[in-house]
Structures are given as C-alpha cells and as structure tokens.
C-alpha cells in the first residue's frame, strides 16, 4: 500500500497542457492521470480520475484504470494514489482526442467561468457530475456528501473488494453484452471523452452534433454524457443476491443516494427503501416474466415478451441490464424489441437468469440486440444456452443471424466459444469429407462472415495443394476432447429444439413501428 504522499512540493497550481509533474492531493482534479494501486492485480496502474467526492473531509476519487474495462472503475481513498510519480495533467483544450480511455479533456483551473470556479471552491460537490448536470443530480450528490458520508465510505470499501474473480469456476465466461450501432457508441464515447472532467461548461462542444448522430444511427443509442461514465448505483439486491452494478444506469436519480436498491425479482420494479420494497412484495403477484413460455426443459424456461405490450416490465429489465452492459442504451423506448427471458424454476417462481433482446425487424439481419446473463449466474454455462437459443430462433425463421455490434469483451468471448463449439461439432459430424462455408452457415444459422471469422480465428482455414481446406487441428480436437470429459463430470447444458413452441411472430406495419 502506498502511503499517502504529501511530501511533494507545492505541486503545480497553474497546470499546463498534458504536462507531467508532481501533484499533491490538493491539486488533483478530474482528468488527471496518475498511478493508483489496484488491489486485485496488486500493482500500481495508470488511472484517470473521473470524479472526486469528499467524504468525512477526505476526498475520494473515482478512477478508471487504463486498459481495464470500465467495470473495474472504482472509488479509491487518497491512500491508494501514488503521488511519488509524476501525474499527467489534462489538456486544457481538446485536440484530436484519443477515444474514450485517454480522455484529456478538462477545464483548466484558471478558466474564469463561474462553473469551474464553483467546482473549485466547493469540491464537496461531485465535481464530475458537473457539466450539464441536472440540478437534481447536483442536489443529490450534495446531499449525499453531507448526510450519508458513512454510507459512502461503505460504498468505497465495497468497490475496493473486487474479489479474486480469476478463479475459473466453470467452462466459459458467459455474459455477452452486445448492442448499439458502433457509430452511436463511438459518438457517445467521443462525447463523454470530450466532456469528461469539464466540471463547469455545460452543453458545450458539438454535443448537438453528437446527439444528432445518436438519433439518426438507429436503434438504441447511448446516452452521451460524462455523468454516465461514473457508476451511479452502489448495490442492487435482486432476489437472493446482492450485486454490484458495473456501469451507469438511468434509474431515478434519487436512488443513487441509496445504499441498496431493491429490485423485485419478478416484476423487476426498483425500490430505494426496504419498507416500500417489502410492501410491494406483499402485493406483487407476478411469478414469472409476463409473457408466453416458448421453451421448457428440465432446468430452464424461455419466455417471449413484446416490448410494446409489456412496456413497464421491459423498461425495468433494460434499466437493470444497463447496470451490466456498457454499450446498451436506453435512449429510446422498448417498443420495437422482443425480449427472450431465460429462467430457472423452483417453487418460488421463475427466476430470471439472463435474457436477450431482438429487434422485431432488423435491417441489418441481427438476431440479437442485447444479451446478458445476470452477474450472479455468470460462468455457469447459461450464456452459451442463451446464444444457442437465439440461433435456434433464427433457424426457425430460416434466417442467418449475428449479434448486433459492438460486442463487449465478455460478449466476444462468449460468442467465440459458442461459434467454435458449433463449427467444430458440425465438422466432426460431417460425414462427407467436404463442405462449404455456406453449408456451415445454413446449418448453424450463423452468418458466413461469422463462420469464416471462427475458422480463421481457430487457425483452421489453410491453403493446401492450391486450394483452401478446412483443417481440424490437433489442438482443436484436444480441446474438444477435454471439453467432452469435463462435460461428462459436470454435465452439459443443451437445448432441445423440439421443445420450442414458437412461430416467428408477424407484426403489422403499425405494430412494428414505434407508435403508441
């Protein structure tokens, strides 16, 4: 643990662009990059300060570690900052931005705008919440710092206890967020990168331009705001589990003050106060997702839910899943989507494990918009089941499908694992000695691009005697062998397509579009 280092000289109060110099606690501000101790990797890593709050007189810093996913961002006390090394000061104006991680934007302290002045003078207010922050947000953060300091400390402690997640529990990583048009996300990122750390300048820069991009680029786009860079909820209680959210989610801003947000396991309604939640539970009669069951086997059921008919439920679902999906956007309403919910059953009801959403009509031929296994059920092989189900539906529709891009890191890994499994199985079961990529695609409902991607990724596409061949490498076969052995012990989650009771829903033009 690095000790807090206040010995350094008076710092550089008048900071220059992108400069490096020694800083003090007092001179630290949003946008500064410095080395922070990361407990899990037990090392100091370069991190950027995204927000500063003062609790019990000590400032706390919300930091984003470079080259780490945002979900590992956390609040750290000053003791974890390494001020013995030089820090990198943010640039005053924003020249060609490196996307997202390396956000240099900030307003230099000297900027005589009233907003900056305020941020400077009253650091107790959540600085990062500054620009364009709705008054409520400021109010709440204000309140927070005054009234619930204790709770906030708890919060910090929690976020620090990033347990050793490296323990391989089960076969695959499964949680695959995926969605939003890349353009939109990029725009959002650019926006947030730009806005980041500017505690005072509201709605500056080409925000209008970016918003326009968000709007025009189609399906659910991401909210372009630096507020959304800071995780806003502390903890969720869903059924039997307490879960730390990974990302920002636009639950009512009041709930950011709550230590725990209670989420009803069945209707997914959210409550900030336990008493209210308990009262709700006495009244709520839902025991499963409010739609039609379209698949049932010994362990799981799938429910199909129309975003237009179950608006409240689907909104609740999206708010929840936004906590775990970086690229998900709640910009637009849920009407044009169908939601497929995977549940396990017991005598309490049907507990949601994960879900994927799907556009009622996808122009780009996507068969999945967002896909998520709730964190408490990750690494149990459910993700692969979800993916498999999405492809089963595509098979029923007679279409080739692919998940909407961008994929998240976990999403990519999950999909790659599924693709590898599927392709290798198809090749092993292929009686003939030849096949085509089209054939593989039509048998798996994967797009030909995904098939090629998989083959290529597994180093299976070779060039031999003047033509391309598919090579089942020894390594692949070994992997397969191991997997089979493992499944013998642990069992394998599979789908039985026979048990699907589903016909592709047909929507009239009126239903499909987003009228209300």
């Amino acid at each position, binding site marked *: 643990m690095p000790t807090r280092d206040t010995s350094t000289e008076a710092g550089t109060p008048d900071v220059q662009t992108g400069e490096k110099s020694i800083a003090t606690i007092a001179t630290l501000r949003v946008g500064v990059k410095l080395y922070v101790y990361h407990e899990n990797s037990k090392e100091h890593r370069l991190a950027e300060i995204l927000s500063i709050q003062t609790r019990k007189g000590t400032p706390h810093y919300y930091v984003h570690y470079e080259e780490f996913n945002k979900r590992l961002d956390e609040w750290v006390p000053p003791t974890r900052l390494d001020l013995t090394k030089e820090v990198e000061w943010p640039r005053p104006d924003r020249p060609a931005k490196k996307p997202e991680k390396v956000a240099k934007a900030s307003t230099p302290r000297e900027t005589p705008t009233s907003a900056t002045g305020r941020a400077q003078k009253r650091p107790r207010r959540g600085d990062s919440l500054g620009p364009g922050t709705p008054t409520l947000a400021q109010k709440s953060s204000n309140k927070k710092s005054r009234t619930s300091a204790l709770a906030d400390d708890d919060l910090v402690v929690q976020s620090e206890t990033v347990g050793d997640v490296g323990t391989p529990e089960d076969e695959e990583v499964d949680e695959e967020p995926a969605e939003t048009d890349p353009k939109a996300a990029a725009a959002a990122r650019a926006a947030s990168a730009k806005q980041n750390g500017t505690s005072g300048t509201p709605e500056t820069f080409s925000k209008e331009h970016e918003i326009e991009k968000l709007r025009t680029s189609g399906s659910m786009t991401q909210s372009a705001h630096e507020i959304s860079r800071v995780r806003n909820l502390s903890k969720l209680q869903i059924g*039997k589990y307490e879960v730390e959210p990974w990302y920002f989610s636009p639950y009512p801003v009041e709930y950011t003050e709550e230590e725990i947000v209670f989420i009803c396991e069945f209707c997914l309604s959210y409550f900030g106060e336990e008493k209210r939640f308990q009262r709700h539970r006495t009244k709520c009669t839902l025991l499963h997702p409010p739609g039609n069951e379209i698949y049932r086997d010994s362990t799981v059921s799938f429910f199909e839910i129309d975003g237009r008919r179950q608006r409240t439920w689907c909104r609740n679902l999206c708010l929840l899943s936004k906590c775990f999906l970086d690229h998900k956007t709640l910009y637009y309403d849920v009407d044009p989507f169908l939601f497929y919910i995977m549940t396990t059953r017991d005598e309490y*009801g049907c507990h949601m494990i994960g879900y994927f959403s799907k556009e009622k009509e996808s122009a780009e031929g996507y068969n999945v918009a967002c896909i998520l296994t709730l964190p408490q059920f990750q690494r149990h092989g459910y993700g692969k089941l979800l993916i498999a189900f999405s492809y089963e539906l595509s098979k029923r529709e007679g279409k080739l499908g692919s998940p909407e891009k961008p994929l998240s890191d976990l999403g990519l890994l999950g999909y790659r694992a599924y693709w590898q499994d599927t392709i290798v199985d198809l090749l092993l079961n292929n009686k003939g000695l030849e096949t085509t990529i089209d054939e593989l695609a039509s048998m798996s409902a994967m797009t030909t691009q995904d098939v090629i991607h998989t083959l290529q990724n597994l180093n299976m*596409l*070779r060039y031999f005697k003047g033509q391309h061949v598919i090579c089942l490498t020894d390594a692949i076969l070994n992997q397969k062998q191991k997997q089979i052995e493992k499944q013998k012990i642990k069992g394998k989650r599979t789908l039985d397509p026979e048990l699907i009771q589903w016909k592709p829903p047909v929507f009239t033009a009126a239903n499909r579009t987003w009228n209300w």
Partner: protein
Amino acid sequence: MTRSGAGNRFRTRKLSTKQSLAVLRENQIDSVDDDAQRNIPQIETGVERGEEIEHHLQAAISASQAAAVGAKVTQIFIPTPNTTEITVTNYETLYPKRFSQPASYIRFSSTVEDCSGTGYCMSAEDEKFLEKMNATKRPGGQQCKVEEFERIMDLFESIALEKQPYMSIDMSTVMLYDEMAAHFGDALSSELVKIAAVVYSHWKEQRVARGGNPIIPILKFEQGQDKDDGDPYVCFRRREVRQVRKTRRTDAQSTEKLKKLRQEFDSARNLVRDVLNRECMRKTIFQVEYGIFESRRQIIGVKRKNGIRGDDEDLINHKPKKRPVDQSAPPIIRVPIRHDGKPPETELRQLVTVKAEKEKQRADKFQALKSSRRVPKHGFIDLTDQVFSDSTVVPRGPDTNFCGVQTYYLPSPPPSCEGNGAGLFDLPEEPSVSAPIPVLQVSSKSPPSRDVPAFRRRRGRGGRIIVDRRGHGIPRDDDLDDIILDRMKHSEEDGDYSPVFVRSSNSDSHIQYRARMLSPPPEPPVNPPQHMRRPVLPSLGGMQPGAPAVFLATAAAAQQAMGLAGYKLGQHPGPQQPQQQQFNASLPPLANRAPVHAQVRR
C-alpha cells in the same frame, strides 16, 4: 508453419463461401502456404476499437489463440465486480413459495401494473405516521389499514400528477385538500374520505420534502426540452414517427377524398335542413289551421248569440283542400328510366327486331302512300315506270344521283329558304302560289344522258352548298397545246407541277358555253306533258333571274374528265334536313318550262 520459399507460387484464389472445402486433419497437411491467409478477409472482432486493447480481453484472446495452436494455457477469465449470494433472512417472507408449474407452457399477458396492486408502497416514515394516526384516533373511529392508507396516498399522487403536474416548478401552491377531494370521485368510501383528510397533511409534508416531485421517484422522461438530449437520466424516449412518404398521387388522392367527404357532408346537411324546413312549414300549417278552426268556432258562437241561422258547416273545410299529405307522402322511389322509355321490367329489345320493325313500318308507309297516290293519278299519264321506287331496292348507278336540270341561271337560295329547314330545291308551298299544280315527281329509271346538263347539290363543310354540274362541262379544248397535254401525261412523277392551260375567254367553246347558259333552255329530252309544267313561282321574283352564277371552275375541276365543277353558292345557314330520303315531293321548277327531274339527293 513453413514458408515454402519462392517454390510453389500458385496464385491463390479468393475464398468463396460457395467453394467446396475439404475437411482434413492436421496430419493430412504437410506444408502450409502462409500466404493463403492473405486472401481470406480479415474480419473484425466486433468489439469496440478502444476496448479491444483492454488488458483482460487481450489476455483472454491470446490465451484462446494459444490454445487453438495447441499451447498449454490456463483459461483466463475477465474479472468482474462482485456478486454475493446473501442470506436474505427474510427471503421466504419476501418471496413466498407459491409457484406451481402448469402442465402446459405458460401463456400470460397481464402487465406489471395489473399484478402489483396499489402503486403506492408505504415507507417506514409512512408507517410511523400511520401508527401515530391510528393511536391518536378517537376510539370509536375506524382504524386505517395499511392498504387503505396506500390507496389514499396513491389517489393523492395520481390526482396531483394529473392536475398539478408541474408542482415541482412552483411549490407555492400545493393543491389544497378541498381541491383534492373534488377529484376523489367514488374512489374512496365515506369512511376513507374522513381518513384521507387526515392523511392529506402527511402527504403534503412528504411531497414538499420531495420538492414537489412524486413521493416515489419515477423515471425521467423527456420533457420536450433541449437539455433532455444530453441528460443521461432521461430514458425511453419516444421514437420519431416515421414520415410517410408523400407523393403527388397520394396528395391528389387524399384531396379528392376530402372533397368528396365534404360534398357528402354538405348534401347530408342540406337534406337535414330541408327536412327541418318542411317540418317547420307543417307546423305553421297546423297552427294556421288551428287558428282558422278557432275563429270559426268563435263565429259559431257569435252566430248563435246573435241568432243568425245558417248552416253549421262553417267548421268544416268546404273544399277539401289538397292536404299536404301529398307532400309528406312517402318519397317516390325512382326507378332508373330506361333510355327507350319502357318500364325496366320489360325485356330489352334487340337491335334486330327494332330494325325489322322499322323496315316493316317503312314498307307499310310506302304501300299506303302508293295506294293513296294511285287515286289522284287516274287523270294522268304516268310516264314513269314506277312512281314510287324503293330507294333501297332500286339499284343506283353513280349517275342516278344527278338530276337533269336545265336552267338559265344558277339559283342562289331564295330568302324564304333560309332558316326554314327546306332544302334548296325544296321550296315550301307558299300562299302566294296561285294554284297548286299537281306535279308528278319523275324519276327516270334510265339515267339522263350525259349530254343533258345535270346538277347535284351537296353540302360541304361549314354549310357550304356545292352544286356539282355535269353535262355542260367545258368541251374538250382542241386548241390545247399538244405539248402541254403531253406534259400532263408524263407529269405524274412531279406532283407539284400544275399544268398551265392557255385559255382564251373568247374561245369558241367558252362563248358556246356562255351562250348556252344564258339562252333559254332547250327542249328537254323527255318532254313532260304540259300539265306537269309549272310556272315560275312569283316568290322567286326576288332573285335576279339573270344574275350570272359565280363561276368558280378551277383548273383542277377542268382536269376532271367527268367535267365536274364546283359552284360555290355561298353559305347556306339553313338547317339540314335530317332524313336522308328521296325527295319525291314536287319541286318548284325554276324555270317556266323546266321539267323537273327531281332526284335530288343531298
């Protein structure tokens, strides 16, 4: 993988999805040409660029790639924040075991709102208040149950949301209880209304503490303000409604539809207005009648009083007027009228029968006329073979269209002719005619010889009357230059070439022609009996008998071997005679001794 030098450099083909690929094991392949990979398109991972470089993802990817190559690697997981299974001590109470799985797949369509009862959920603070309220209540008063409390609060909240949605902006005027109560409707029983009055203060307190916002926080939806766009807490925006593509056609169509609709509404309105008028008039009729009746009654009274005796029929309308019943009679259903005027039930007539009938009528008339004419004919000698010939039966050569006429001059239509529908030669019998002279219309079966001048009247465009003339054509001009004639013969190729005829107006033939035109008519070839003659109608005297006809023989006409010439007689505005039939009627001879060959055909 060995790179096989510059040895086998085959041009590698591009990877096609349709191409058949052999599935081989690694031991079946000895050498691999790495360059082949170049022709396979590199496909993006689909992960955001900025995130692709993330440490944990890269580690996982390289691990899996190493595994694909056969290296021994431990599987790498991407670290995620904590989730802990907590021992929710009251899980059982929160989530009672009440799910029993139905045998068939669940079908369900109720919404969250349907399933979660009263929207308002009591908070701990509410609970305290409720306990206090129940404790301080007069013992006789009803205790307020939690459900009732929530119902009241829910009602307050929903009324406030509806009636004062912007309370958070202006906190000075929170709805008063009385205003609230006005909107209760019958949502609350009278007992609860009493309680509600007490709860109101608590509600107001809570609401004010929340800054006028709903007590239970709600999602932030778009407010239609600009800053909505940048606010990350604003979610679930409405989609922009897709603009329907507008085309001129759809525009025109909808305009037409609207117009039609408008017209229909107008006519409906007019109909209603007319009905109203009618009924108003009927009402006045009744009133007037009533007035009349009353007056009569009074008259009777007066009569009785004054002892005037008379009939007591005053009360009755003597002449039963036509009652307006006629007007109010049920509207006559109009059956569409057939164009032939028959009731619609009768069978449609076929064209064949109509024609046959007409033919028969015509034949009958012909017979009747024939027989009727036979009588006055007894005194005459009929020189014609057949007086009444059936025009449709009689074969007519081209020449039969011409009637032999000999005239001194070309007649211009008499003034009396104008406008009275009579043809040029069909002069009406005028009273000034001294005596009706029986004239037998003669039509010679054998066409008049060519030598006899004959005329045919035609009507041209614009009502021009054209008289074709035959028989007194310009005699062949022997003076015509042989060369010119020869030129004419060979000039067929040159259509534009118009031959020039050298003509002297003093040539013999012209003098001869003019002499004949001006001379008294020669003896007709068929000498009609004297009684067929007819004097010149005095009415014709208005015309200058000697007026020379405008001679408009054109060179082209002269060319015609037939010798037809066109005489332009000027406009003849008189209406045409519609019937195309023979004029067997008598024609007034134009000249005293002119025999009339009256096969005039228009």
